[in-house]
């Protein structure tokens, strides 16, 4: 009898244990079908795309999209990289040309962001929610996509007026499926047009009264700023003037000296139109400050030093000039040092090794406005330039016009936007060459400092200026060099049969 009981027990427990279904669900992902149910769900895709764009890194040298901004300065005329980790190969023009990490990250970030923006644009119509929310979200998706196409247009081709039909990068406007075929590379004009079209749609869709809850979100000001920027790069002076005028009506605040010297690390700054905030638990992008910050001890690499000649571009009354000085590496005993570097104390970490990333300031809009007007021979150009100069304590310039005025505006861009990611793009779009001049190591610099005991000390150190004066093939720097451009990665060339059709 017992045998029967046991047999029964086995059968009963078997059915009990195995009657459950074979369904399981992930806990770190959401099924695609649930993602665009409501407008607030769709909004999450925008939020996630932004986070992906700004915080994804493939090495510590490439902490998010900001790495592209940092590369732009490292490859210009004014930054002197030391030999430490990070951007020294950009400085020597081997990083992008050699299709290194920044080059591959750029492609992945841009197109993954574009695909997510496309998903929002094509799905938002069916989402549940108010019309104004739908417009706002769709508008932000268009603006984000436009921002990415602007990056591609300005970094993967020479200036639009050099060869408007030069191949640049593919354009996608629909979300991808497993059956999506690779698109052919569009021309630089087409990519600029796509960027401007997207941004103009965004301008219409995003309600003017939209109040963003964080400064990374795209509102009308950001859209106008991006449109000003894109139009300037595309050499559409009228539009650049129009949109920058509109934006300056909304916001023409220029920060004070105290704010300027507070470290360029906080989105609360009234001059910042657009920035990416950082917190203690979201701080991948802050890693950029280990390169940018050359005067704080907690900085690892303090690599973005400046060309000693760069300081000479500033007037003595310019408070920015006081922020540029010779210094040894922070936190080291100068008695044991051999070198002294010219350092710009513009970028400084906040407490906790974090720092917000600046993406757009009103001073850039002043400069766009001035440049567009100068190109249009509008006499107001000089006024706008001088407004910015006087805000920085610099001497106003008088009587400039034509190319001389434009050159003065370009120089002001170098000074005002140093380290913010514009140097190389300006060189490309203006068809200029990188200029680097040797700085003599004699006489040595008498470096004065206060030691631990509070005593004033002085030590004679070797000054460090530019180190790389030619391209990797030892040819002299020139305009429109392929060493300036991002390159389509091998993986795209290998899989996309239509790329060059």
């Amino acid at each position, binding site marked *: 009898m017992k045998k029967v009981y046991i047999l029964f027990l086995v059968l009963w427990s078997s059915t009990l244990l195995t009657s459950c279904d*074979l369904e399981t*669900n992930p806990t770190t992902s959401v099924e695609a079908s649930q993602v665009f149910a409501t407008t607030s769900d769709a909004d999450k895709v925008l939020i*996630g795309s932004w986070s992906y764009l700004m915080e994804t890194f493939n090495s510590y040298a490439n902490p998010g999209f900001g790495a592209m901004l940092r590369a732009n300065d490292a490859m210009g005329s004014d930054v002197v990289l030391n030999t430490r980790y990070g951007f020294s190969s950009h400085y020597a023009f081997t990083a992008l040309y050699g299709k290194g990490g920044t080059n591959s990250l750029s492609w992945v970030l841009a197109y993954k962001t574009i695909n997510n923006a496309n998903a929002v644009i094509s799905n938002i119509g069916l989402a549940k929610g108010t019309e104004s929310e739908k417009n706002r979200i769709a508008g932000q998706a268009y603006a984000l996509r436009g921002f990415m196409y602007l990056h591609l247009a300005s970094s993967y081709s020479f200036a639009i007026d050099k060869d408007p039909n030069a191949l640049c990068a593919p354009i996608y406007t629909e979300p991808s499926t497993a059956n999506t075929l690779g698109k052919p590379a569009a021309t630089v004009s087409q990519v600029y047009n796509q960027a401007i079209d997207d941004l103009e749609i965004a301008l219409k869709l995003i309600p003017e009264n939209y109040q963003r809850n964080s400064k990374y979100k795209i509102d009308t000001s950001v859209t106008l700023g991006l449109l000003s920027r894109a139009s300037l790069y595309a050499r559409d002076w009228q539009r650049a003037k129009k949109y920058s005028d509109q934006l300056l009506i909304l916001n023409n605040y220029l920060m004070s000296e105290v704010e300027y010297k507070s470290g360029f690390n906080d989105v609360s700054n009234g001059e910042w139109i657009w920035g990416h905030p950082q917190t*203690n638990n979201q701080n991948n992008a802050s890693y950029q400050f280990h390169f940018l910050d050359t005067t704080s001890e907690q900085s690892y690499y303090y690599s973005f030093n400046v060309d000693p000649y760069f300081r000479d571009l500033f007037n003595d009354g310019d408070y920015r000039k006081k922020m540029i000085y010779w210094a040894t590496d922070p936190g080291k005993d100068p008695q044991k*040092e051999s*070198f002294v570097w010219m350092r710009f104390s513009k970028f400084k970490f906040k407490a906790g090794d974090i720092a917000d990333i600046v993406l757009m300031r009103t001073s850039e809009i002043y400069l766009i406005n001035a440049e567009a007007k100068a190109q249009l021979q509008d006499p107001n150009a000089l006024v706008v330039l001088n407004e910015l100069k006087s805000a920085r304590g610099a001497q106003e310039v008088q009587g400039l016009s034509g190319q001389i005025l434009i050159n003065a505006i370009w120089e002001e861009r170098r000074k005002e936007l140093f380290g913010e990611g514009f140097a190389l793009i300006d060189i490309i779009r203006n068809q200029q060459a990188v200029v680097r001049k040797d700085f003599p*190591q004699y006489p040595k610099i008498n470096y004065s400092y206060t030691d631990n005991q509070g005593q004033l000390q002085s030590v004679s150190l070797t000054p460090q200026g530019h180190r790389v004066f*030619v391209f990797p093939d030892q040819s002299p720097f020139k305009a429109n060099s392929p060493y300036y451009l991002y390159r389509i990665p091998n993986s795209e060339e290998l899989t996309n049969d239509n790329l060059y059709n």
Partner: protein
Amino acid sequence: MNQFYLLLWGLLFFNVATAQSILVEGKVTDGELSLPGVTVSLTKNPNIATLTDLDGHYSIQADADDTLIFSYISYETLYVPIQGKTLINVELKVNFESLEELIISVPYGTAKKSTYTGSVGLVTAKTIEKAQVSNVTKALQGTVAGLQSFSSSGQPGSDATIRIRGIGSVNASSNPLFVVDGVPYDGSLSSIAASDIESITVLKDATSATLYGSRAANGVIMITTKQGKMDSPTTIELTTKYGFSSRARSDYKQLNTNDYFELYWEALRNNRIDNNFTPQQAAAYASENLVGMIGINPYGLNNPQPIDQNGKLVTGLKPLWDDNWTDALSQNAHFKDVNLRISGGGPRSRYYISAGFLDDQGAVIESGFKRYTLRSNITSDVKDWLQVGLNVSGTHSIQNYPKQDDAAISNVIGFARALPSFYPVYERDLTSGAYLIDPLTGGRIFDYGSYRATSYAKYNLLGSLPKDLNEIKRDVGSVRTYFQIEPIADLKLKTSLNLDYDSRFNHDYINPTVGEGALSGGGVSKSNVRTIGMTFNNVLTYAFQFDDLHRFNAMAGHEYYQYNTSQFGGSKDKMITDGMYEPDAGSILKDFYGNSDEYKLLSFFGNLEYSYNQKYFASASIRADGSSRFEPSKKWGTFWSFGASWRAIEEDFLQEAKDWGLSNLSLRASYGAQGNDNIGYYAYQALYAIQNNLGESGLIASRLATPNLTWETNLNLNIGLDFGFLNNRINGSVEFFERRSKDLLFEKALVPSTGFSSTSQNIGAIKNYGWELSLDGFLISNEDWKWHLGINATTYKNKIVSLPNDEMWSGSKKWVKGGSLYDFYLIEWAGVNHLNGNAQWYIYDDLGNRQITEDYSATKDKDRVKSGSSLPDISGGFQSELSYKGFELALQFAYNLGGKIYNSDKLSLQHLGKAGQTWSEDMLNRWTPENIQTDVPRLTTEPKSSWTNQSTRFLVDRSYLKLKTMTLTYNLPQNWLKSVHLNQASIFVQGENLFTITKEQGLDPEQTFDGTTYYRYPSMKTISLGLNLKL
């Protein structure tokens, strides 16, 4: 302790005595050692029997004219007529043939190895216990043909990667299934004590594995733990080992300080010339800036320009210090292993209980592994028709695991390699070189080197690691329980419920005072990963036969498997003070995370075995699996196998051959299919991954829908021949196998600009085919000397049968139809340009003409050429056991012949001029106008193209011969043991990884399957002394 074992001793003395006519006594030996547990029975009176005790003594009541039968497993049975004698001492001879009559573990049961239709390899306790490793996977290398074990890390407690008959899968898992005591095992393999293992059976083909269905696509490794024996006296066994460990191979040789400074001067000068300065200006610049670039002057502050403008060290200068960081970061590691095992059994039950402690310190500071193990295996026949069994094991382990396997600065292996000798370990007076003394402690001061030119500035792991914590605590519990009822004769129903619980706590702490945390305030992270695997099955078996000729075994069953993994963790920054390791001591919350996954598998299976006259054997199996990983309509897969074997030696026509020595000849063949679903838990939905931003929820497209994705299938063919000569004194087997995988779970590359890099598809097919040979023999076997030699070899090829695209890339490998997954396709190194010293590579123009370029970025994937395979041509091992009287010397070798490794480990030491980064010795051979015949380019701080870009230049041979273990044992003579009341005692010296013969200096050739090196913890050499006592 003495009292303890005397007490146990007392318990052991029990003899079976029955009243009969005369009492016969005696001792059974194998010619030298006494044999306990030998069955002594009588021909005329089969109901009476006894066992020899621990001394080999027996006494039995018997009729004076009866005959004694002495039988013992693996020994020839001996018949001795009593003929009135009362003292009969006998000596049993080893029966080589019966060694082959091994019982092996197979899915849901056991089988005789000699008649089994499948392909199996067996590793016995004897081999396993000779390895001094904290992870049993590492003891398998070189032991079984067809099994490859790659210990890519020497960190104590780490797993080796095991592959059986190559890799059958591209993107799904290629790990074999581990089975412990008959049930798939989900715990950590490092939690199993080697001394608890009775045997390891490796199932290589379909016959064996199909019954585990989808889980066995990559072969099965069945670990059987020790059991007591029914009706046997209690055995107590104690094993202890104590030894020392160090690096098995020294690291790559580095440049000394003088050479480094001269070479770096040269790099600086050359770069200056490249930037259009005159040679004089360039030389002056190099002399002027050299020390500043490197950050410290090992020649003292009084010599600010140690290298003159001719690039030579100023005469008379000597470095004031010359520190070896590898030595500084090594420790005197100890190895301790203690095990106590008690086993025995009564008429209805048997038991095995063990406890163990292992302390395996790593060769690198702050690394090691400590483990406490407990096991209890109990089986009882509670009724004639009911058997119950319970195997329980529990393990607690603590692994000290400093960062060691990525590019991080705090990687303790990378750190030692990356710091050159001119960066001092302790702070020095920069003028005299004397150590600076801490006025508080009176000791030396760790130099954290904020002046170092590399990313290694501000770190000194020797100073900071002892204050940090990198700990992995693991608790593993495993329960195997079953009951088996036999309602009618030969019909058995076995129900078993099995649980594997594994909980891993990672605790990492960076101190806030010194090193990397000094400025940031330190930090702590703590996390837990908990996994539970549950297997529940019911298996019905029935054995029947006709005419004694036809025998059948039928089996049917079902199984439900559920695997759950759940993790959470968090981290905090800014610690309150040193030595406060817990998150409560941190002030800034950085992160809190957690997630879980679940996997379910429901299966039904059956098996039929048939044998005719013990000559012909056949078997067939089928299994259906439903997996939660796939889309509902694609969940089920059905897998099957057939096998047959023929014991030709039993045929009449071979009886003649028997006379001239043939003792075994049998042929086996099998064919079958297994599945693989191991490709992520949710392999069908389109997904958006959670990617939050600044306190708001965020999502990002992460996976494309794959509604058609389903099982990958492995089709396995195996043909084997077993043979034996001279009573199987020499025996072996040859096997041919072909593993063909179809519907491969492939990550098909997508166009990156679509926003997705790949999608999963069932596409393509590959096969692995090859030969395995194993030979085993007693070359010498006489009273004093015994020499046993075993050798195994495997050779196989991997071939891509079909692919979705014409060609596909996977890192340094290109996959083309007809090629192999393991073919390196690399840019061909074209040597150094004799004229200018630049690195050169070959590229091909549109017409296919080979050209030379100095611009690496001009190379395209089409320029990469087939440059060898990462698979060795032949791999395997050999064992030698030589014994003389009480001495035994056992050696276990592993070898690899052929195959390539891409040595990326060394690349960081071969830069052309990065300030302060270590240089390997071969840089002395760099191109100079005087040395133009070289394969090391001209030095310069800003090379046009990095010469260390991937090319055939850095591909090296992976052939090696390694002495894995060497054991010298001395069994103490019985007459000595008598006086201390011990039954058996031996002392031994064991060595692990004693030597490696290979071409490449500094490289450990035991690397991953794909032949690419990546930051590995060096393997360890361990030498220890041990003692084994049996009470």
